[in-house]
């Protein structure tokens, strides 16, 4: 089998996405990348980076492997195995330069997703076979870059395109200082006397214009702002793999399906941010471009498939466990 397969998706943000690139002061900025406009100029357009989505795939595949090997219930991983499964491993420098091909083949046979995503093991970086594109916000600035089927979908569903600026919202959150609440101050061992003194000296500092005193004794309330891509925004995402066996194909599908079943990206996931879901999916066999894209049921990608992957790993349960115990990554 020799196939290059690409899954193309339209993703929808179910909740706001707080995928930050950097912070300036106490404001974190949304992740953006330059995109060329039809007139040749550039615009900074919000994206979900390929790194984030690829990590999501790696994590989903790692969990699927541990699940199939029956290792999810009993904590049994060492530092190296954790690094290899969830972060792609590290060059440890513990062996000479040669890659032991037997070891490499064994690793890929036991953990098929490592053959697809690559990583570092046995003192060598192993290239992956999966390319994960950044998810581009579908907006006026990127409309000209969208494949025809995406444009058609937007037209059929009457999706009006906005400028990317319309998809960004700046919000403020505040971490409260519990000592500002008199009720909570009563819970302190000294009944809140020390805190009240601090607050009084802060007020006094402000009254007399003593900035140092006011600063030293100020409360720890922390307002901060962040940009989010608003819920309901659509993204175009593409993931491509070079596959050489039915097992690899099934692993690839399992990985993508498992990730998209409950996909979350960016920060502030604990407070209702970053949920995405696939709206439409296409499978494209790249080597045969004349074939029409085949529709995929994205929601059902994982439950229906993956039988080959799961049976392959669970049949080698003991070997997978032994490998992960001894791996150097």
């Amino acid at each position, binding site marked *: 089998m020799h196939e290059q397969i690409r899954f193309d998706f339209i993703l929808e943000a179910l909740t706001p996405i707080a995928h930050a690139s950097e912070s300036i002061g106490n404001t974190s900025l949304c992740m953006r990348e*330059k995109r060329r406009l039809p007139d040749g100029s*550039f615009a900074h357009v919000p994206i979900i980076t390929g790194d984030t989505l690829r990590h999501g795939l790696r994590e989903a595949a790692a969990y699927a492997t541990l699940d199939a090997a029956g290792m999810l219930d009993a904590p049994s*991983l*060492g530092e190296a195995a*954790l690094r290899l499964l969830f*972060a792609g491993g590290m060059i440890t420098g513990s062996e000479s330069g040669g*890659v032991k091909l037997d070891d490499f083949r064994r690793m890929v046979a036991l953990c098929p997703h490592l053959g697809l995503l690559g990583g570092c093991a046995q003192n060598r970086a192993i290239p992956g076979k999966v390319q994960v594109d950044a998810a581009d916000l579908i907006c006026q600035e990127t409309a000209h870059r969208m494949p025809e089927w995406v444009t058609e979908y937007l037209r059929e569903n009457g999706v009006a395109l906005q400028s990317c600026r319309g998809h960004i919202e700046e919000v403020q959150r505040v971490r409260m200082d519990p000592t500002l609440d008199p009720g909570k101050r009563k819970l302190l061992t000294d009944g809140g006397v020390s805190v009240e003194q601090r607050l009084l000296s802060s007020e006094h500092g402000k009254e007399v214009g003593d900035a140092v005193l006011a600063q030293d004794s100020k409360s720890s309330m922390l307002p901060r702002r962040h940009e989010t891509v608003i819920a309901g925004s659509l993204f175009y995402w593409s993931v491509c793999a070079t596959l*050489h066996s039915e097992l690899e194909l099934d692993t690839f599908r399992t990985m993508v399906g498992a990730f998209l079943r409950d996909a979350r990206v960016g920060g502030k996931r604990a407070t209702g941010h970053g949920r995405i879901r696939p709206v439409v999916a296409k499978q494209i066999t790249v080597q045969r471009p004349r074939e029409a894209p085949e529709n995929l049921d994205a929601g059902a990608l994982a439950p229906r498939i993956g039988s080959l992957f799961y049976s392959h790993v669970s049949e080698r349960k003991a070997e997978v466990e032994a490998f992960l115990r001894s791996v150097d990554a």
Partner: protein
Amino acid sequence: MVPIAVRATVASAVALPGYAIALDSLLMAAVATRDDLPPLGFREKVEFAIPLAKERGIYLASLGLFEHEAYERRFLTKRFPLAEAQAFGDAKLKRVNMSAGLCKNYRIPMETIHLHNDAMTWFAIGDLDVVRDLLSWVHYLGKKRSVGLGRVQQWVVEECEQWDGFPVLRDGRPLRPLPLDWPGLKEYRVERRVLSPPYWERWRDEPCAVS
């Protein structure tokens, strides 16, 4: 073998932290992808057959030619999976040092380039059909392909006109690293470079003529 021009149109920025991409190494990577070959070991000499002409052990193919249009900064980030370590770590895993050593988190800046007209071009003497076939296996160029950088939208491989010194020299300037005694060299710098793929084998470098 005929003179050919290869043009890639890319859909995104490209990461090229080292030198420009050589067509011969790109074709060898395509062979490795097609045949699912395992990674090469250290000093393990393997040479794949690629459909390009060779002279004095050097493939007659240029490096990728392009102009920069815009630059962008991005970061490579690596974090130790701490939450997973707490959930699945065995009894022996008691401390993780995240400020030094193998589990250290990092965020390294890197630069990407937007190419003028989104295009990169190579010139070579080779078998047009086989080159075209092999390039259909190449969907991304440069580094960090795994996260979507350098995505190729289209390959155009066509026969082209030759000029004096084609395809490795143009107006006496080298279009790829060449030995210093290569005929026709006029304007060049001398740098230590590798003359044949894999180009990352720096221990094989030697003084070469470059533009």
